[in-house]
């Protein structure tokens, strides 16, 4: 569907405000590790789709487990959000936003913020483990 400008889109082409591909994720606001919430498996599929949860199992559970918390923190880091590991409102607003289908993490190679941190330490800084 092509339109010359925004105002030329007819009402019949507008989606229902609640039927966006990922709008249902707003229902997970405030969820935190340890909880079990109906539909959380779909959020895990989202994170798997974009590389944040590797090695997808045959089906994801609705548990807010360690894998989801780890994925969420890495996503928050990449998108300059507070890395709380909690599904706060600002994180959900970013998650439901339309986006490019190319994964943020490919073959386990993290890009964006988390990747930069790794490359900095290998390139120019000497670190000592404590």
């Amino acid at each position, binding site marked *: 569907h092509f339109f010359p400008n925004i105002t030329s889109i007819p009402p019949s082409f507008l989606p229902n405000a609640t039927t966006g591909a*990922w709008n249902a994720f707003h229902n997970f606001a405030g969820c935190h590790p340890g909880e079990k919430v109906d539909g959380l498996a779909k959020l895990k599929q989202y994170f798997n789709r974009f590389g944040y949860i590797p090695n997808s199992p045959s089906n994801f559970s609705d548990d807010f487990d360690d894998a989801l918390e780890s994925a969420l923190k890495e996503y928050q880091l990449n998108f300059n959000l507070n890395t709380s590991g909690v599904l706060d409102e600002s994180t959900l607003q970013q998650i439901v936003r*339309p986006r490019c289908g190319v994964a943020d993490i490919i073959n386990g190679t993290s890009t964006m913020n988390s990747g930069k941190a790794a490359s900095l330490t290998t390139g120019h800084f000497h670190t000592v483990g404590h």
Partner: protein
Amino acid sequence: YTFFPGTPKWPSSNLDLTYAFFPGNQLTDSVKAIFSRAFDRWAAVTPLTFTETASFSSADLKIGFFSGDHGDGEPFDGQMGTLAHAFSPTNGHFHLDGDENWVLDGDSSSLTSSSTSAIDLESVAVHEIGHLLGLGHSSVEESIMFPTISSGSKKIVLASDDIQGIQVLYGGNPNSNSSSTTTTGEERGTSDSG
């Protein structure tokens, strides 16, 4: 800026790239012009050139609009959600979701309620061409290669992060006095993602 694993890029022997549109889409000249402008933005800061060709099969870059499962293992999901995807060099495939409401001039100054489902075509085209050339996603919100875009917003000017990244791969434009361009707030739109 980031690159794909292995840092794939177009070889120095093939920096004059051709592109073609999927014939089945029967795109109008005004739609094709959007892509031409998007290619121009990357050509301005690199030694790469982009020329449209009528031969889809032999083109280096193949652009098409498709809906749902279109055979590459990355099905589209209807309106909103994922908008497009493109493959790293030298694959050349660039697919856009045919179910979106693509706007040829998604100028944010004309925002209305209908903008909730309007996606600016040129913004997405500039982003995906970055992937075709070898750039991954960036965490810099102002950059073209940031993964998300808000509906009803327009972001088409390469940021310094984008330019630095692409010039690591290919160098600057030998015909340009400046190796980079400046970004302007005016063309950057009002996206709340940058």
